[in-house]
């Protein structure tokens, strides 16, 4: 029961991904300030109070294999001991066998069904001779009390308040329904695999927009009031002050839930990232799966679209109009005489996704998504909006990356020791060391990162990590001088010093849903090998993968067995060339760019990862740009003199960049005119 003068009163997700919480209404009740504790056995007193207040209670109950909102007459109707398991396209009830009544997440219905019902009479039109009249339907808003409303649902109500009441024209039916309903919220102490309120900044803890909020413990409920009406209810409940243990356990349960969800939809810059993808081929890809059945929009607690239907008598003299839920996925929705503006399912999906996460922001100042996950669970074919967002509008590789674990030995003087497990010759002058006993920070390193490798008495060397094993890393090293020779000369059980993992990485997530082109020469394959491992480990997330590899001679190719293995897989196109061949080489001879001179692939669908000698990279970049690859989709590594590896020594400074700290992986767009410029 919140007056609309205070609207928008519920927290809603701001485009920056953090909730904008409404200022809680000061509670003026004389009954202390809370929080209170309501024993489980006394929950029925709350329900009785609501009934005495002449309210219908809309709360959770089990029906047709799900926990749905429906009219609740007593605590017997609540889902005692019942929970839910949700995943894309699947919903299951589970029996917890305990006495909890709110130990589930959101079902297919939301309070929207009562605040914005699916069918509402609008008017009756009449014709009498030449005169016509329209009599608006006057509806009395039912006195409701919503019980069990979750933080994401409160945020959704806040969003619909902005849509229906925040603009120059308002929906009075909605206003009446909102005004006459009491909201009793419940903090989530469990999350489904489909939940992502943490990303949208809406939950799992209710931060306004409720009259009362409960947090369920085994023995009962921690209760807080958000409005005078809520405080008035508390005054009539058999509560006592919650003790410190109860308050702690309530907070702990909510905190744990938040931790399980993580941040699956990074919202920073999402608006712009998404709007930049209007022409993405990914839309057509999604449309292969999308049924355009509108289930996602129908279960969405913020979708607000509707159509008006007429039903008239045979003479057309009396007609009744109704407003019915309608959705951007239906054919008629964007239709005019002559056809539909969004005739293809891909257009409709794009409309839905870009509206939720971009144009909604422009219209209403919030996202149109609260992270409840309903559209994921209730999609008959299990399309996961989170995965689609990552594919269509992947987060930019932000730098510096706050999430990256801090490298070990991150001061210039320090190295952590690790032990060589095995040594494997690759060519006459290249060895791969497999190194164990490494700090765990290395094992969570990213593809393309490097390590500073030290043995006493020699200058430390930057060596790219050529594989991330389960508990080892590989370092592939060419004997180029005394320092490298000293490392190559080591054997199993010898120790070395490591600092790292350091530097930037190949942005593999940006390649999801795209073609991948890898062009490399000589030992340049080493830093690309983890990328190839990563691509193949999630092969289905990428379209065509093409590897072009040039070496001086067949004997100078790295990882020859693996190259054969990759080629044999059939799902990665491996093309090899050499500068000079011996007699048993049957492949092409020539520079690596000749390998794709006559290829037919479309560069505009591709991301390219390039590593090799700088001359080779320049020629490759020219060839890639000629095929339509934009500079922000071509990634190269720069090789420079590095000593510290952490941007402190100044050796590798290149224009405004430190190659070790800001690179070594750069997009061409990032490098601008630095790339290929002599003497910089």
């Amino acid at each position, binding site marked *: 029961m919140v007056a609309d003068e205070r609207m928008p009163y519920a927290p809603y997700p701001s485009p920056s991904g953090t909730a904008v919480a409404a200022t809680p209404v000061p509670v003026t009740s004389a009954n202390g300030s809370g929080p209170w504790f309501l024993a489980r056995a006394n929950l029925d007193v709350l329900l009785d109070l609501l009934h005495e207040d002449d309210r219908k209670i809309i709360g959770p109950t089990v029906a047709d294999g799900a926990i749905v909102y429906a009219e609740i007459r007593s605590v017997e109707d609540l889902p005692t001991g019942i929970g839910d398991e949700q995943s894309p396209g699947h919903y299951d009830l589970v029996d917890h066998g305990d006495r909890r009544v709110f130990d589930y997440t959101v079902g*297919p219905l939301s309070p929207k069904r009562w605040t914005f019902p699916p069918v509402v009479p609008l008017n009756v039109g009449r014709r009498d001779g030449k005169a016509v009249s329209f009599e608006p339907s006057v509806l009395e808003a039912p006195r409701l009390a919503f019980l069990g409303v979750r933080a994401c649902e409160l945020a959704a109500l806040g969003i619909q308040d902005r849509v229906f009441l925040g603009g120059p024209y308002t929906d009075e039916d909605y206003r009446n329904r909102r005004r006459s309903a009491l909201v009793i919220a419940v903090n989530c102490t469990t999350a489904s695999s489909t939940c992502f309120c943490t990303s949208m900044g809406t939950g799992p803890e209710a931060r306004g927009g409720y009259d009362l909020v409960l947090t369920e413990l085994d023995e009962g409920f921690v209760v807080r009031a958000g409005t005078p009406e809520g405080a008035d209810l508390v005054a009539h409940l058999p509560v006592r002050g919650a003790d410190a243990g109860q308050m702690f356990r309530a907070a702990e349960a909510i905190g744990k839930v938040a931790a399980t969800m993580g941040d699956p939809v990074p919202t920073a810059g999402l608006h712009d990232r998404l709007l930049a993808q209007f022409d993405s081929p990914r839309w057509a890809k999604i449309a292969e799966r999308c049924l355009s059945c509108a289930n996602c929009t*129908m279960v969405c607690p913020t979708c607000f679209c509707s159509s008006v*239907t*007429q039903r*008239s008598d045979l003479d057309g003299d009396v007609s009744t109009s109704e407003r019915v839920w309608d959705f951007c996925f239906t054919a008629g929705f964007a239709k005019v005489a002559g056809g539909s503006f969004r005739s293809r399912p891909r257009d409709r999906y794009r409309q839905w996704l870009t509206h939720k996460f971009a144009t909604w922001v422009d219209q209403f100042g919030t996202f149109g998504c609260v992270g409840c996950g309903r559209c994921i669970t209730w999609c008959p074919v299990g399309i996961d909006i989170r995965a689609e967002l990552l594919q269509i509008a992947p987060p930019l590789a932000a730098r510096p990356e706050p999430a990256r674990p801090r490298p070990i030995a991150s001061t210039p003087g320090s190295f952590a020791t690790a032990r060589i497990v095995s040594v494997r010759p690759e060519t006459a002058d290249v060895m791969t060391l497999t190194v164990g006993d490494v700090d765990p920070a290395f094992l969570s390193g990213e593809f393309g990162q490097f390590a500073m490798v030290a043995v006493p008495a020699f200058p430390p060397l930057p060596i790219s990590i050529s594989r991330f094993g389960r508990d080892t890393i590989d370092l592939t090293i060419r004997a180029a001088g005394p320092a490298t020779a000293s490392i190559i000369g080591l054997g199993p059980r010898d120790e070395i010093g490591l600092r790292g993992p350091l530097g930037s990485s190949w942005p593999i997530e940006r390649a999801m849903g795209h073609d991948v082109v890898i062009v490399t020469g000589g030992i340049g394959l080493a830093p690309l090998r983890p990328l190839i491992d990563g691509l193949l480990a999630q092969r289905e997330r990428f379209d065509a993968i093409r590897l072009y590899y040039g070496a001086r001679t067949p004997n100078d190719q790295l990882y020859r067995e693996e190259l054969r293995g990759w080629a044999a897989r059939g799902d990665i196109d491996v093309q090899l060339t050499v500068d000079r061949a011996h007699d048993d080489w049957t492949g092409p001879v020539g520079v690596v760019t000749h390998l794709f001179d006559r290829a037919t692939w479309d560069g505009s669908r591709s991301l390219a990862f390039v590593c090799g000698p700088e001359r080779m990279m320049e020629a490759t970049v020219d060839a890639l740009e000629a095929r339509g690859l934009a500079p922000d989709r071509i990634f190269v590594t720069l090789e420079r003199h590095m000593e510290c590896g952490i941007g402190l020594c100044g050796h590798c400074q290149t224009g405004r960049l430190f190659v070790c700290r800001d690179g070594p992986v750069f997009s061409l767009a990032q490098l601008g005119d630095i790339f290929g410029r002599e003497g910089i």
Partner: protein
Amino acid sequence: MATVAARPRLRVGIVKMASCDGCQLTLLDLEDELLALADRFEIVEFPEASSLRSAGPYDVLLVEGSVSTPDQAEEILELRRQAKLLVTIGACASYGGIQALRNWSDHDAYREAVYAHPEYIESLATATPIAEHVKVDLELHGCPISPEQLREVLVSVAVGRRPQIREEAVCLECKRKGAVCVMVAQGVPCLGPVTQSGCNALCPTFGRGCYGCFGPREQANATSLARTFALGGREGVEVSRLFAGFTGWSAPFRSVIAEYGGPPGMTPPAETRPEGGSDARR
């Protein structure tokens, strides 16, 4: 359109091809408005209600059933010439109906198996929708059709506007009613997402999957839905069977049926053959 006292009544005919007559009976379901309808329309032919026959012409001709005999294939051509507005009613007239399953089968083998004197049976090897024979102005879907949609067609003709028949999935009716999705919550295969609405989600709201009697909706992505059924662990023939129902002959469902190996049982089992000498028509 102003009410005019001396308005001529529109001539409405109902004719049937191969059908069960359930769709034309739907007209009688409009009980409350039958008198008003009779005031506006002259029902000149209605086999289930009257023995009167008419040769036309018709302002509105409602055609029930699919074309399944050589006679029907000729008759529909003449009916089209007599009709100003030709409206097919039901799954048979619009998609071929359940009898269109014969289109995949060995027609002659079944005829031999079922009838003691197959030489008396004059039927086509296929049962086909009216639109494969003549131009159709409007199709009403369903098995049977929705009385509300039939009413809407008649009202729109009377008032002189376009009929408002929603182009949307059954799911919209299901969710507007607040039903829990049988597919997501119970794993029941349901054609609702690819099927035209109009039934008010009758089957799903009684806990069973939609079997598509209203036929494919516009942009029906039957391929994706079939893939989901298959990924749920169903054999190809099962996937095929789900689509091979009352509207299986529609183009989107037909291509899925073909992709998953065709409907089962397309040749008669040997034991169904009648005893020699018995007369099936007796």
